């Protein structure tokens, strides 16, 4: 267990803190949006869905580049925040959180939306027919009936944020104890040819990702089994 003392855990702590904050913010923002998308017949829905899915298909460096432009001192937003509140977004942890929210947005929205869409629409209508508002229907009827999708959305968004590299490097750089998250730390270690340490870091992330996926699939398997026995 000597290697435990050998490891600098701050990058992991930063990664998990970043992921926890991102998932919390995303849950609040993405939940009503996913609910709206699932119930909407708006002609603008495909456009909004395409924008939501963009981070999945865009190279992280492209997204990171635009995020950097948006958050930098020269942008309207960056300039305003820096002048008014002395908040610097580029190459800061706060900037990383904002960039991660954009990057992981589809991983929260899509499982929730597909969960809501898979619900029996008559069940939703039944809630309206007994006088419940859309808000109440979401909390008391829709959300409790999409637990596997909810778990998938939260866990995958968390794991995806922990594993992101390109966007965080572009927006946050590689500042120790501030923006050097685990994935960036591995890149840094490989650059200085410290393969032994990089191996341990990569192993920890591999184990983490695998465990998370096993938990998600196990929960969903158990859920299907339970519903299956009823049918």
């Amino acid at each position: 267990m000597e290697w435990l003392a050998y490891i600098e855990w701050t990058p992991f702590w930063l990664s998990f803190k970043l992921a926890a904050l991102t998932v919390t913010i995303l849950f609040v923002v993405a939940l009503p949006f996913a609910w709206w998308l699932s119930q909407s017949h708006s002609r603008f829905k495909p456009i909004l869905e395409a924008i939501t899915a963009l981070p999945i298909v865009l190279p992280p460096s492209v997204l990171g580049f635009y995020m950097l432009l948006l958050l930098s001192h020269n942008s309207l937003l960056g300039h305003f925040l820096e002048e008014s509140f002395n908040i610097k977004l580029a190459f800061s942890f706060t900037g990383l959180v904002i960039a991660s929210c954009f990057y992981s947005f589809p991983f929260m929205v899509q499982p929730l939306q597909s969960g809501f869409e898979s619900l029996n629409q008559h069940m939703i209508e039944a809630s309206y027919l007994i006088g419940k508002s859309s808000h109440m229907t979401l909390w008391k009827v829709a959300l409790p009936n999409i637990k596997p999708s909810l778990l998938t959305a939260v866990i995958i968004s968390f794991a995806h944020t922990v594993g992101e590299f390109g966007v965080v490097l572009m927006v946050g750089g590689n500042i120790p104890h501030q923006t050097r998250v685990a994935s960036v730390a591995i890149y840094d270690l490989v650059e200085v040819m410290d393969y032994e340490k990089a191996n341990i870091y990569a192993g920890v992330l591999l184990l983490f990702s695998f465990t998370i996926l096993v938990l998600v699939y196990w929960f969903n398997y158990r859920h299907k089994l339970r519903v299956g026995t009823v049918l």
Partner: protein
Amino acid sequence: MLKIEIEKVLHGSNGSMTLSVNTTVNKGDFVVIMGESGAGKSTLLRCLAGLEKAYGNIVVEGEVWQDGSKTLSIQKRNVGFVFQDYALFDNMSVKENLLFVNTNKSLAEELLEIMEIRGLSERNVQFLSGGQKQRVALARALMRRPKLLLMDEPLSALDPRMRHKLSQKIKELHKRFDMTTLMVSHDVTEAKNLASKVWFVESGGVKEYDKVYLEEIY
């Protein structure tokens, strides 16, 4: 009295057609709506409940639910609606399904008693048979003491014995709760047993007959 003057464009496998309904229903009537699949029977119920938009006027016991200038939301219409596929809240028990409507415990108890499902009140609805589920759905629909009960083929997914039993329950509840009821059905025996009026939806319109006509032609 229920006054319906609506028009709704239907998009079916044979193209588009306009369903035009102009009729009235007396308070306490039990109307069984029959007709071919795709004729617009379910759509008519959904328009009355506010689940689909239609042009025209709907007035229920003097209260305007819809006219040219306003449309009452689904939540405010106070209809009881029973779906063919039950549409129960799967995350709740039988009792919770009823008490989610409102907290009138004595009414919930009364309905569970009438529907003979009191012994199942704590059970999750996912673990019920089709007949039990539909009894819960019917009880839930009555928790707001609706003026109007709308049922879209509520018995068609059930076996003949349960169909007969539930149709008796529906008849009993219709009288006991003093409702106006509209029910879509394909079953002539059911219609003969329950209806005071029969509507045939065909060729984009509604033809109205009384029960005697149904007994003559079948």
